[in-house]
């Protein structure tokens, strides 16, 4: 089956004064996938998104969206949730969404607002002023603003921030539904577990450079299996372990290249009470930490 590229970024470079924020970045996003755009704070993710949306101009490089260069007509095909939250505080939920819907030239916007408010369980708050809503509720209103015009490409910067587990699940379900409907989602988040479960492909940038890019399976295939151990007692440094991510009674251990996991188990049993020992592919979280720390 032939894949359709929704977004094709080639050799993108952006400088602010003399600082290089994005350095020769290339990647593409295929139709119908959830694509993770990752990186530590200040890595250049927001700048990248702003350039994709034509809010900022790149110094060098090319971007094709839906197979063509950016033009104003494309704005109606893209939904955007910025990282920094901002809504008009003094107007009602309905007035706010109506304004954003009008700007996206949505027809029959009243029906669509009702539909989406029902979907995010905020219909009863339709006539409430934004300032009366909790942070999580405002987050959902802003998500509705990104979905209201039924865009083909969704660019969501930290969509789960400020949401409780129930609302996180609600939004996750909506995103999965959107994917099933053939929508393409670019997800920028620090919640690695969500990325790991939801994203088909990822791009990790650090200090403006592309450091990881590809499908999760491909990326994980390049890393040695790690050990997950649940224990009691005080974990000490064990020979053959490269890095430890210790949570107090749970730890993720990255092993040295030629270390036998069985040897590690033996050594661990000597220092702590091992309740669970598991060999598994490294989590994205571990890979993220390793890549960023070693950069």
């Amino acid at each position, binding site marked *: 089956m032939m894949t359709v590229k929704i977004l094709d970024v080639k050799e993108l470079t952006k400088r602010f004064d003399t600082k290089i924020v994005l350095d020769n970045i290339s990647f593409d996003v295929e139709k119908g996938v959830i694509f993770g755009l990752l990186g530590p704070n200040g890595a250049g993710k927001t700048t990248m998104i702003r350039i994709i949306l034509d809010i900022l101009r790149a110094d060098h490089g090319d971007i094709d969206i839906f197979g063509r260069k950016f033009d104003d007509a494309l*704005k109606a095909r893209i939904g955007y949730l910025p990282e920094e939250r*901002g809504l*008009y505080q003094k107007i009602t939920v309905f007035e706010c969404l109506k304004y954003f819907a009008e*700007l996206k030239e949505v027809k029959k916007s009243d029906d669509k607002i009702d539909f989406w408010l029902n979907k995010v369980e905020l219909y009863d708050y339709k006539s409430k002023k934004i300032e009366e809503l909790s942070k999580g509720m405002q987050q959902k209103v802003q998500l509705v603003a990104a979905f209201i015009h039924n865009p083909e490409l969704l660019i969501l910067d930290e969509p789960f921030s400020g949401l409780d587990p129930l609302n996180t699940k609600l939004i996750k379900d909506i995103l999965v539904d959107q994917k099933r409907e053939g929508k393409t989602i670019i997800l920028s988040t620090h919640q690695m577990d969500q990325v790991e479960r939801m994203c088909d492909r990822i791009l990790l940038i650090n200090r403006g450079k592309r450091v990881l890019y590809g499908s999760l399976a491909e990326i994980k295939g390049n890393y040695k299996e790690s050990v997950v151990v649940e224990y009691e007692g005080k974990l000490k440094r064990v020979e053959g372990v490269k890095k430890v991510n210790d949570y107090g009674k749970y730890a993720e251990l990255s092993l040295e290249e030629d270390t036998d996991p069985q040897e590690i188990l033996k050594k661990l049993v000597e220092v702590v009470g091992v309740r669970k020992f598991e060999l598994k592919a490294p989590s994205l979280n571990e890979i993220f930490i390793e890549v960023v720390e070693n950069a």
Partner: protein
Amino acid sequence: MRKIFIIAKHEFLSTVKTKSFIFVLILPLLILIPMVIAMGFIPQMALETPRNIGFVDEVGILQANDNFTKFGDSENAKSALLDDEINAFFVIHKNYRETGNVTVYSKAGLFSSPPTSVIETFLRDSLLEESKIDETLKERIQEPAKENSITLNKKGEVEEQTGAGFFIPYVLAILLMLAIMTSSGYLMQGIVIEKESKTVEILLSSLTADELLTGKIIGFGSAGLLQVVIWCCMLVVAIAVTPLSALFQGISVSWILILAVVYFILGYLLFAGSMACVAAPASTVRDAQQGATVFTMLAILPMMLLTIIINAPNSIIAKVLMYIPYTASVTTLMRISLVEVPVYELVASLAILTISVIIVIKLSAKIFRTGILMYGQKMSLKEVWRYLKG
């Protein structure tokens, strides 16, 4: 275009619904209109109010009449004053002819003052009556000058001067300045608040920075224009229903009001563009207000030089202020309501203002595009220059 209209409609409606907009709109009703009416009626009322004043005449030259009551001695007059039978009384002493000494008694009170000018007039009239001089001469002494002022320019030509005095230019200047500053102030605040709340990023994913700025300028400007039009209507009504209409004879009020609208639009665009320049790169409303101080100072300059402009509307200062874009709107309106400004001066002033508006709006669009997404940094002149080049 449609998106510009949506932004303009949103800004217009959200502005006119605010309490501060409604307050500024009715401000003239609260302050200026009562002032207009008072200026029209009070002088008349003051002249027409009969004053009951007593006198004790130790010389024997005064005759009692409807307003002046004669008393035999000071004690009787004092009792009458304390019993509120009279408002005040005066005593002309025996040596009055040589010294002019008169003692005036009045009651203490918040609003009372000795009616010296009324007493002086009464004394003058009585002395003239006694002197038995020619009636015509008597009239001249009573009213030595019926003034008719003529101002000459440098060439010795007569310059026409209307009789409206300081009133119209003062009111026009205040209202125009208020309208321009409030609507461009709303624009500045609107930009910074959207930037602070990061709403601007959602907006910029739907439309361009130029569309956003244009929509905002039109939206806030329309709200300001509504203010000006309503004020003009209030002024017309106030003039029509008060005795002040006499002051406006010979002045084409409609012409001034049309120019008021034209100068509002141009003045507003100039200040709005300038405010956008300082608002876009600012991180907080306070930062933006600091940056806007220079424009606010320029806007109030004609008010600070009000006396000069009113007393000498054709002076170099008044003319120069008419050609400086930031002071042109207010100064020109003051001048045209005082003297007949040559058409070429008006055209030149409008041309300079229009060109400045075009330049400022173009600059502001450039600064807005870059500055609106700049966070946590103070704007430096070097950066502004970079934006302009970029």
